[in-house]
């Protein structure tokens, strides 16, 4: 089936509180899960502000991707980094450079804010994200994750 695509224009801009619904819609589209309202509160989080390293990607004026990141002291060497928490792209708009554009925006902003690095946790079985980030100059270091699952 041939899908005719108009020339789409991707615009990356800082995330605003008004974007939350669009962000949640993308998350739902990816995961098929409808989440509780508290999720929104927690994304906005401290001080009622969107973390200052978060961005959305608009295609023809509609939000089709987002990157949620915040400053964090994380890992060794213990240093202030931009920690990518969530990177989501509408499944219908993948493979158009949206994720790359979002990560580039984060890298540029983090550099201008004098952060030392940008970091993301990826599942080692994830064959989609690992090459993407490797291609963008990210390196797998010696940091590993230990997790404890609490009884519910």
């Amino acid at each position, binding site marked *: 089936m041939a899908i005719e695509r108009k020339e789409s224009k991707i615009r990356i801009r800082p995330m605003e509180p008004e974007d939350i619904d669009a962000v949640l819609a993308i*998350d739902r589209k990816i*995961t098929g899960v409808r989440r509780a309202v508290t999720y929104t509160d927690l994304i906005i*989080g401290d001080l009622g502000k969107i973390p200052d390293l978060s961005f959305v990607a608009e295609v023809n004026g509609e939000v089709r991707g987002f990157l949620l990141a915040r400053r964090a002291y994380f890992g060794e060497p213990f240093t202030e980094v931009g920690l990518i928490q969530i990177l989501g792209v509408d499944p219908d708009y993948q493979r158009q450079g949206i994720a790359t554009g979002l990560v580039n925006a984060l890298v540029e902003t983090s550099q201008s804010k004098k952060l030392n690095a940008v970091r993301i946790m*990826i599942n080692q079985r994830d064959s989609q994200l690992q090459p993407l980030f490797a291609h963008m100059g990210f390196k797998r270091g010696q*940091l590993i994750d*230990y*997790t404890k699952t609490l009884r519910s």
Partner: protein
Amino acid sequence: MASAEKEVKIRPMERRDIDAVLAVYSKIREEKIPGTKRSRLSYRGTMTYEEVASTNPGGPLDLSLVAEVNGQVIGFIWGRLAFVGIPIDEVGIIHMLIVDPDYQRQGIAARLVDALAERCHARGVNTVRAVIDERHWELQNYFQRLGFRRSELVIYTRTFKS
């Protein structure tokens, strides 16, 4: 040396604790591993009041706790609630765990980790994470003893040239 009989109180970190937290941090940063010139912390930089304050201790996403003896902070765990990944997972992330060298080997760090886990659990968050350098066997063994297991997550970093 402090006596183990002194009562250790674990409580949530507040903004007023920031100076005390920085003092404990500085103490351990300057401590050398016996017989070496190496610090126990691989991070050699300083941590400022503004940096700790920016994490908003006592705020809605904060999970941090302090350990006190006679009203004096002698250890802390710095942790935050975070949403990570797709599908989004709500987790508690341990950023730092430090106990004054004079009070180590008394189970205080384990109590701080347990208390942080309880705070997560009370909020319906059932995963706690700690990011560790894979060369740091001592710390890995320690977290394993506390019930943590190595996950499938790996960390990718892009470091900027300074």
